[in-house]
């Protein structure tokens, strides 16, 4: 029971996939620290990066971070945008082979297409970014989806408990059919985290296919109509874009105070909301701009023949009004 029309997939957005062995109870396993690559460590190496689709803000931040890190390391980085299209990712992999790329990071949209992309790409180590790239990945880097969802869900649960003693009216989950795996892990993490504080069935749960701002706005507008008079609506989303849309819908309906939101990513577009909107309870920081500080140094190591860990997960942080200024620099709020 979910909905939507344009599963255009553009915002497989702050996407991600299976982070095996990630359980809320042992959340920090496999998590590594960001590190600025050692200057010169990549000199003479030709590395590749298949970008998810730079039209997605999250992906663009990752791409830029990768470029920065490669430059700092002195490595040549060939970037190829797969534009959220498996077929294009395949073309990227072929082109890497033609260009003699020695190892690459792969942020290709669909983990089930990984086999073909792996086969077409050059020999050499592959590190998956946010989306599993079996069978050729030697390591997975990026989001710990379930964990990321869990910490925000838990924060939302604490809020609901303190404010209403868990007597909320509805639980709206903005998900994505375009990237089902990431969606399931992240939103599943939310549920578990929330239920770890407010146990039992979720009340009046609504699942919307709304991974883009505009779809989320339309869907949320209609959904609010089906929740007349309710003032304690929890809205959680697999990315901040959806949350922005939900807020816009509530604002247009004059019900801004009725929804309490939490998203994933802590994108720049969300900073002001987190800081100033009292109904924006918590977000999870993904630090896409710093992905390169994990991916590039480890890829360099791998190309040079060193062994690297199989899990290179991002140190997510819970972002709230209290710490948003420390973590980021919101302007003009």
């Amino acid at each position, binding site marked *: 029971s979910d909905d939507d*029309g344009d599963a255009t997939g553009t*915002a497989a957005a702050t996407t991600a996939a299976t982070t095996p062995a990630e359980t809320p109870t042992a959340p920090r396993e496999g998590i590594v620290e960001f590190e600025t690559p050692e200057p010169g460590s990549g000199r003479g190496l030709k590395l590749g990066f298949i970008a998810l689709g*730079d*039209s997605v803000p999250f992906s663009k*931040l990752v791409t830029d971070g990768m470029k920065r890190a490669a430059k700092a390391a002195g490595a040549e980085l060939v970037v190829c945008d797969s534009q959220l299209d498996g077929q294009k990712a395949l073309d990227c992999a072929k082109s890497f082979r033609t260009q003699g790329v020695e190892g690459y990071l792969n942020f290709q949209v669909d983990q089930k297409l990984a086999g073909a992309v792996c086969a077409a790409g050059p020999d050499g180590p592959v590190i998956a970014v946010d989306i599993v790239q079996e069978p050729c990945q030697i390591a997975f880097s990026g989001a710990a989806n379930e964990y990321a969802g869990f910490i925000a869900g838990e924060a939302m649960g604490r809020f609901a408990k303190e404010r209403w003693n868990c007597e909320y009216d509805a639980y709206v989950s903005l998900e994505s059919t375009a990237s089902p795996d990431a969606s399931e892990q992240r939103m599943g993490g939310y549920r578990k985290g929330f239920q770890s504080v407010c146990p039992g069935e979720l009340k009046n749960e609504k699942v919307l296919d709304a991974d883009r701002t*505009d779809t989320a706005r339309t869907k949320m507008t209609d959904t609010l109509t089906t929740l007349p008079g309710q003032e304690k609506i929890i809205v959680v989303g697999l990315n901040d874009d959806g949350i922005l849309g939900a807020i816009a819908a509530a604002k247009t309906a004059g019900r801004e105070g009725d929804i309490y939101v939490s998203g994933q990513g802590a*994108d720049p*577009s969300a*900073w002001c909301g987190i800081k100033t909107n009292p109904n924006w309870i918590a977000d999870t920081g993904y630090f896409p701009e710093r992905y390169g500080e994990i991916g590039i140094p480890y890829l360099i190591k791998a190309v040079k023949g060193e062994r690297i860990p199989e899990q290179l997960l991002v140190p997510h942080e819970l972002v709230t009004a209290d710490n948003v200024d420390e973590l980021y620099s919101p302007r003009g709020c």
Partner: protein
Amino acid sequence: MTPVGTTGGTAAATEKPAAPGARAGAGANLARLPDIAPLVILLLALGIFFSIKSEFFLNYDNFLNILTAAAITGIIAAPATLLMVAGQFDLSVGSGLTFCGVLMAYVADKQGIFAGIVAALAGGVLLGLVNGTLVTVIGVNPLITTLATLAAFAGLARVIADGQTLPVNGFSSLGTSRPIFDIPLPVIIFAVVVVGFYVLMRYTVIGRSMYAIGSNPVAARLTGLRTGRLIFAGFLLSGLFVALAGLINVSQLSAASTQAGNGLELSVITAVVLGGASLAGGRGTIVGTLFGLLVIATLNNGLTLLSVNSFWQDVARGTLLALAVSFDQLRLRLTRE
């Protein structure tokens, strides 16, 4: 003599400008009402169906939801109808909306909201100028022209925003205020635009001229209409209203996303063509487009209210669209015989 083939009814013929005896155009007063009749019936049928199925459908708020959802597409669909009547297209509306929104956010961040608004409008004018120049001065096919600007302006928008969603604060009233009867401002703007274009197309020289150009561009030139200028103006209008829609979108979301206009061109064309405009030019009305928009918005709204799975929503939308138009065709066929 009457161009041959009136009774033909092979579809091939229906798109040709010369195909005569095809359904009456907007000019024929009496013929107009029946033209949108099937859309009205469809809309009523949808209304009844959804009212029975969902307690939330028949409700002032929900009615406003439907109109709000249609507003942005609608504001762009109005000049698009005018262009299609003149035998032109504008596929660049989606990326134009994105571009103008981003421009607004970018400039507003540095120079303030007002400068941002001016920048967005200038961006729309720029888009219109580029399209208009390519089509009327250079003579490039409008489809190619606007496919090219579709790509170029989407790219430019992303370059400006560096691919990010840009927040815009303190500019929410255009998109979210409800000045009278609790009606959101975008809906009021939409209504004004529809009325404006109704008058423009129906009662002004410009509107008439557009129909004439679309129905026979050579003849239009030979009756002294400045076809180039008028089409140019059509593209300018389109750009301007794209900018307006972009501003509303930014205001509603308090942010400018580089994805904002994705796929909008298809929604616009769907509404316009569903409303009875012909790709070959010379036919189409703003009222038809309005009903096209309403049918689509009602369908989306109702299916969401019923919590229909989004996959089935696509199937339902496609099937209904096909059925509605088929029904219309069959009706025409019957009444003609």
